[in-house]
């Protein structure tokens, strides 16, 4: 006799029959009947009419029957609240049963019956069960508190169950502890403000002890709870990490991932100089790789999380490329995720292997996968410059396969490669043109049209090609239409004589026949430009394009930090914050990584800096944190002898500055006592920051009046983007003061007035020191030159890249935004010459991993020339040595915010094969090194 018979469909009158059976005297028949009821309930039939009859079966000593009735009750009690009350007596009685299994069953089921009247009766039994002698009953009661809270939060608070629950955290039984933690965590989520999970070092210690003893599930609850705790300092963080690391060897992947979450979060607080930090980093990789031998569904969860971890801390898995190679029998979702991670880990060191793999994938069967593989090849080309050529030839091979979607995808990525490396791979255009006819997807067509337009002068039959697209203009998607319009205008500007007719045609198609406003607008703009000022048109349409970024699909840093706090959870699978998919207030508390509390100088490695930069707002609210930003902000309190910014006092001041919103308010404040070590009176000005550095500069007398190198003006804001206002400019530093030299040109037809300028917060606090003064209204075609003095007293927020500056310019027409990069040497202060001894000591003091090495090619200058040229831009030679025919220059410079950069420059004048310089930079904030190097290069090559 099997139970599957209960699933067989029954005829009419079934309910009636069941009713009779339920009321039968025979126990067996009753049980059979209840089973039938449950089976019907499972498949979705409504058997609520049988409620009183089923509840009548509850009074039984047959536990199996009792459980079945309870199951029924949980499903239908809500629809029949009055009847459900009939069950209360049995529940209350069962809660007193000598058998702990029955006591637990009663309290467990009662919590699932969401009827107010029953809830009232639940309180007393629950209170008893929370203190039951049997741990099985207590662990069940602990969860029941969470159930009750879900139904009636007020009742739980009034009855004092929360306190009892908190007591259970100290229970002797690990499973009771785990369930209490789970229940409290859930309740705490709906009361973000309450201090329910009052975690302190003592309770943390209890949790860590229970962690070793409870079930795998309990370990997950505890680890997830630990992840919400913020240790008070780096030592506590380290000791928790030490006790959590053994969990990385657990067979249960969820335990491993939750442990990884705790470690990733607490690592944030550890100083990178600690040996332990390095050990921990090394310990993270093997378990993450092991997760990839789990079942495919878990692999998927693991890979989504690894994707986050790789973005946050690329160093963890940088040597593990091979484990992400796709296996033949991986499910498609695993393949796609692996591919994503492969691209993230691609570097010059492993690019050959990666490309060989990607090429293989591009011949696979699954269309999505193949497309992504082709796209990945393009991304590698853009990311690793050395590989670009190989990538392009691989893509050409793939185009030869003539597989339609491969060709289309390849053309889309080749367009990006053209943009990244202009004038390098145009030889392949001919091959691309051969495949013009096979393109049927808008994105590929648009990409091809862009290529034809961009290189119109090199394609003999560009006009024919574009004309062929024009025939079906109306059937094309908007993306293709827009691209075609632009491409033909480009063509016209390049070959005006033969293509007049074509451009007329496309302009009239775009402006007269189209109902797409974007297309019409663009058409009109081109038309007017072409008819009024072809030269301007050329400047607008054929303007140099901004660079495209190397990394794509990077998650925005604040979101990334939040997701790191959600490792293992759904949020990390979706790559979305919980608020994006969880309804209501529950579980959507915004989580963020703990700020670093160690007072030592933070030394983010340049690799992690972009993703790892803490959000600016954190600094605003937590002023005492001496993290990366604090360091960048540091005002150099001491005289230059003190070398790099020192410890706490400086850090705090940096933060005060942020709060105060500027230095002005602080000058003369009584708390601002000059440092006792300030032996040189001139340096009194220094603490006030570089806003006053010009003053300081005069007194110190180090500054040279010649000023540093000034780059030629570049167009920052093309007229096309700013309703006719063109802004070009450059940055200068003269006699210690920074200014932004602007050239405003009115290319519109109306007069411009009311100019104003504002900067977004930036890494070095650059801000206009005076309003933008444009004395007369700017009439059409007029140009005005303005030098805008800048200070570095503005508020600070780390930008990416470090030296980018976002500017807003307003006039009577509109507000326009643009962003530009400033050369770092405008920030080199004139007292940046370090004492020799100090230099030596500081060089040794800065850890070696902060050293960055660069090569400056094709710079045939000798040591004197180099030295004097750099000196004029405030890079000072501290010492010079000659080692084996090579000149070594030791140099120092200081940034406006007090960061010292030390340099070793190796010059090999006698070496004909290599006329370059080798530069090693050491700095406590290594992320500036790259930019300092760029400054070197600019200064030396101009």
């Amino acid at each position, binding site marked *: 006799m099997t139970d599957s018979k209960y699933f067989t469909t029954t005829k009419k009158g079934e309910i009636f029959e069941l009713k009779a059976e339920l009321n039968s005297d025979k126990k067996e028949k009753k049980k059979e009947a209840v089973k039938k009821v449950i089976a019907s309930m499972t498949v979705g039939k409504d058997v609520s009419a049988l409620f009183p009859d089923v509840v009548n079966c509850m009074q039984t000593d047959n536990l199996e029957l009792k459980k079945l009735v309870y199951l029924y009750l949980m499903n239908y009690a809500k629809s029949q609240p009055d009847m459900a009350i009939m069950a209360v007596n049995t529940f209350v009685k069962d809660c007193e049963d000598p058998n702990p299994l029955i006591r637990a069953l009663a309290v467990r089921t009662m919590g699932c019956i969401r009827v107010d009247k029953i809830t009232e009766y639940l309180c007393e039994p629950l209170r008893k069960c929370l203190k039951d002698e049997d741990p099985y009953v207590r662990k069940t009661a602990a969860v029941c508190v969470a159930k009750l809270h879900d139904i009636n939060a007020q009742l739980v608070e009034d009855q004092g169950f929360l306190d009892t629950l908190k007591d259970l955290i100290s229970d002797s039984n690990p499973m009771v502890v785990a369930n209490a933690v789970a229940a409290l965590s859930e309740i705490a989520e709906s009361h973000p403000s309450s201090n329910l999970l009052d975690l302190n070092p003592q309770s943390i210690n209890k949790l860590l002890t229970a962690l070793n003893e409870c079930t795998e599930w309990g370990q997950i609850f505890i680890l997830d709870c630990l992840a919400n705790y913020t240790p008070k300092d780096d030592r506590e963080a380290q000791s928790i990490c030490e006790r959590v690391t053994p969990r990385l060897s657990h067979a249960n992947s969820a335990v491993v991932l939750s442990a990884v979450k705790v470690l990733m979060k607490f690592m944030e607080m550890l100083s990178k100089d600690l040996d332990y930090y390095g050990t921990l980093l090394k*310990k993270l990789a*093997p378990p993450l790789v092991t997760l990839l031998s789990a079942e495919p*569904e878990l692999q998927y*969860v693991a890979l989504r999380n690894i994707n986050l971890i790789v973005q946050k801390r690329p160093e963890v898995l940088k040597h593990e490329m091979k484990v992400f190679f796709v296996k033949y029998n991986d499910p498609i979702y695993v393949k796609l995720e692996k591919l994503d991670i492969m691209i993230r880990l691609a570097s010059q060191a492993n690019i050959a292997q990666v490309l060989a793999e990607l090429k293989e994938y591009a011949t696979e*069967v699954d269309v999505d996968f193949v497309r992504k593989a082709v796209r990945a090849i393009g991304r590698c080309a853009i990311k690793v410059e050395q590989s670009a050529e190989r990538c392009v030839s691989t893509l050409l091979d793939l185009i030869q396969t003539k597989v339609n979607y491969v060709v289309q995808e390849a053309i889309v990525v080749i367009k990006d490669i053209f943009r990244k490396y202009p004038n390098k791979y145009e030889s392949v255009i001919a091959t691309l043109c051969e495949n013009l006819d096979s393109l049927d997807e808008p994105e590929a067509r648009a990409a091809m049209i862009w290529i034809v337009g961009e290189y119109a002068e090199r394609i003999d039959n560009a006009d024919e090609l574009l004309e062929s697209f024009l025939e079906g203009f109306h059937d094309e998607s908007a993306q293709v239409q827009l691209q075609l319009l632009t491409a033909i205008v480009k063509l016209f500007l390049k070959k005006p004589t033969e293509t007049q007719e074509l451009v007329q045609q496309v302009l009239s198609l775009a402006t007269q026949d189209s109902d797409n406003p974007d297309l019409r607008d663009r058409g009109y703009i081109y038309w007017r430009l072409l008819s009024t000022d072809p030269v301007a048109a050329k400047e607008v349409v054929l303007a140099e394009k901004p660079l495209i970024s190397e990394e794509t699909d990077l998650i925005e840093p604040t979101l990334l930090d939040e997701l790191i706090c959600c490792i*293992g959870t*759904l949020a990390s699978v979706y790559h979305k914050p919980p608020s994006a998919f969880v309804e209501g207030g529950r579980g959507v508390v915004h989580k963020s990584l703990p700020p670093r509390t160690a007072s030592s100088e933070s030394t983010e490695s340049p690799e992690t800096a972009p993703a790892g930069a803490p959000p600016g707002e954190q600094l605003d609210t937590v002023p005492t944190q001496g993290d990366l930003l604090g360091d960048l902000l540091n005002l150099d309190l001491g005289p230059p002898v003190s070398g790099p910014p020192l410890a706490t006092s400086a850090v705090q001041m940096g933060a005060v500055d942020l709060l105060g919103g500027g230095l002005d308010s602080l000058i003369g404040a009584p708390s601002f006592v000059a440092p006792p070590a300030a032996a040189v009176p001139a340096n009194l000005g220094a603490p006030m920051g570089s806003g006053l550095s010009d003053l300081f500069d005069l007194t110190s007398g180090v500054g040279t009046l010649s000023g540093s190198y000034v780059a030629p003006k570049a167009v920052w804001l093309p007229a096309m983007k700013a309703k006719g206002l063109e802004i070009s400019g450059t940055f200068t530093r003269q006699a210690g003061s920074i200014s932004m030299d602007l050239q405003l040109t009115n290319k519109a037809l109306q007069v411009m007035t009311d100019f104003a300028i504002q900067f977004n917060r930036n890494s070095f606090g650059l801000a206009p020191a005076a309003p933008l003064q444009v004395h007369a209204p700017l009439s059409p075609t007029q140009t005005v030159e303005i030098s805008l003095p800048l200070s570095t007293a503005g508020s600070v927020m780390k930008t990416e890249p470090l030296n980018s500056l976002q500017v807003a310019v307003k006039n009577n027409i509109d507000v326009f935004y643009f962003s530009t990069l400033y050369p770092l040497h405008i920030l080199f202060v004139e007292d940046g010459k370090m004492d020799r001894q100090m230099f030596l000591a500081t060089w040794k003091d800065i850890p070696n991993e902060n050293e960055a090495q660069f090569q400056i090619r094709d710079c045939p200058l000798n040591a004197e020339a180099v030295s004097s040229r750099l000196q004029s831009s405030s890079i000072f030679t501290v010492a010079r040595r000659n080692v084996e025919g090579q000149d070594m220059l030791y140099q120092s410079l200081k940034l406006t915010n007090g960061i010292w950069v030390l340099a070793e420059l190796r010059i090999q004048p006698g070496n004909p094969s290599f006329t370059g310089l080798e530069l090693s930079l050491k700095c406590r904030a290594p992320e500036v090194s790259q930019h300092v190097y760029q400054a070197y290069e600019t200064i030396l090559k101009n």
Partner: protein
Amino acid sequence: MIGGLFIYNHKGEVLISRVYRDDIGRNAVDAFRVNVIHARQQVRSPVTNIARTSFFHVKRSNIWLAAVTKQNVNAAMVFEFLYKMCDVMAAYFGKISEENIKNNFVLIYELLDEILDFGYPQNSETGALKTFITQQGIKSQHQTKEEQSQITSQVTGQIGWRREGIKYRRNELFLDVLESVNLLMSPQGQVLSAHVSGRVVMKSYLSGMPECKFGMNDKIVIEKQGKGTADETSKSGKQSIAIDDCTFHQCVRLSKFDSERSISFIPPDGEFELMRYRTTKDIILPFRVIPLVREVGRTKLEVKVVIKSNFKPSLLAQKIEVRIPTPLNTSGVQVICMKGKAKYKASENAIVWKIKRMAGMKESQISAEIELLPTNDKKKWARPPISMNFEVRQRRGLEQCVLGKTLEILPVNLCTYHLADDETETPERSDFNSQTHFFPCRLPPRN
């Protein structure tokens, strides 16, 4: 936490439906059926979000298990739970099939009530569950008070995976080391990546609460964790095995492993997976597989595969099976092999070559002529890799000494091919069985 758990058959009919949270309604059952089971496209993700409700699913044969939630749950935990659920069901009634689920639906509901409370997984070790949930109905009414409290203390206790009072007349212990060597070879024969993932499966039939210590070979070096260095290796004078990482069954005391590198545990009764390990260093490939493919015209393919055994001549590989995939438009195959038997299996699109046993340092080869139908079918052949399976079975000495209830096993080597060094004669009750899977390797691309 998990809001509900549903089990469906291949048609999408509900077999089990248990809702734990109020935010999950009956419509969730249908949403999953319509959007995932009946979806036209192949499933692209094991996690699906439909109308702000998330569905996690796993499939066992043609049965779908889905966990549903509206909250930001621990996704890894949900999948681990679903697998565990499958293990528990399999331990109770064998294969997970529609028939078995229907036959045991009352039991399944009972289990679901026990192992998932308000969506929080509870103790789900079959050893413990079987003490109070049985297929023969519940015995609790006949239990004494002592028995009852013994059950609850076990379910909530630190050793939730083992019950007390187990007695065997003969205490026996079996160890199986199962390894799969994953090898990725380029068409040119270059090894692109290779790793071994191994499992140590233990069958324990021991009385009482035996405290076991599994001393991994003292030569073992856990890579990258800095414990154990080259010095130790040279001291012992033996080849060391570098393990990249290992994970353990929950019975193993992890903190002890972390600090002392010793694996100590009280085992569950019966069969369980004690540990998994992974290694990428110095992998000795037990076999070399050398494929040669030549295209003769458009309708014929010549395939030659050579296998070379690459281990000690005294060892014997058994039940060797080499699987050579064939194109989809194969019309016929002629096979000649030096050893064993080979057959073309049209239904599996593969030539299956079986060899009963092969000693180390030997070589064998198969050649096949594959006739192809001329076809215009654009459907591409996925070119699956050649795969190979075999077992190395040997009776092996485990120095074991039973001291009261403490059982020590020292040392155990992890890789079969390292095994042969110091064979001691076999105590009768221990059995060392190793199976190595060896795949995949890519066929050269066809044009």
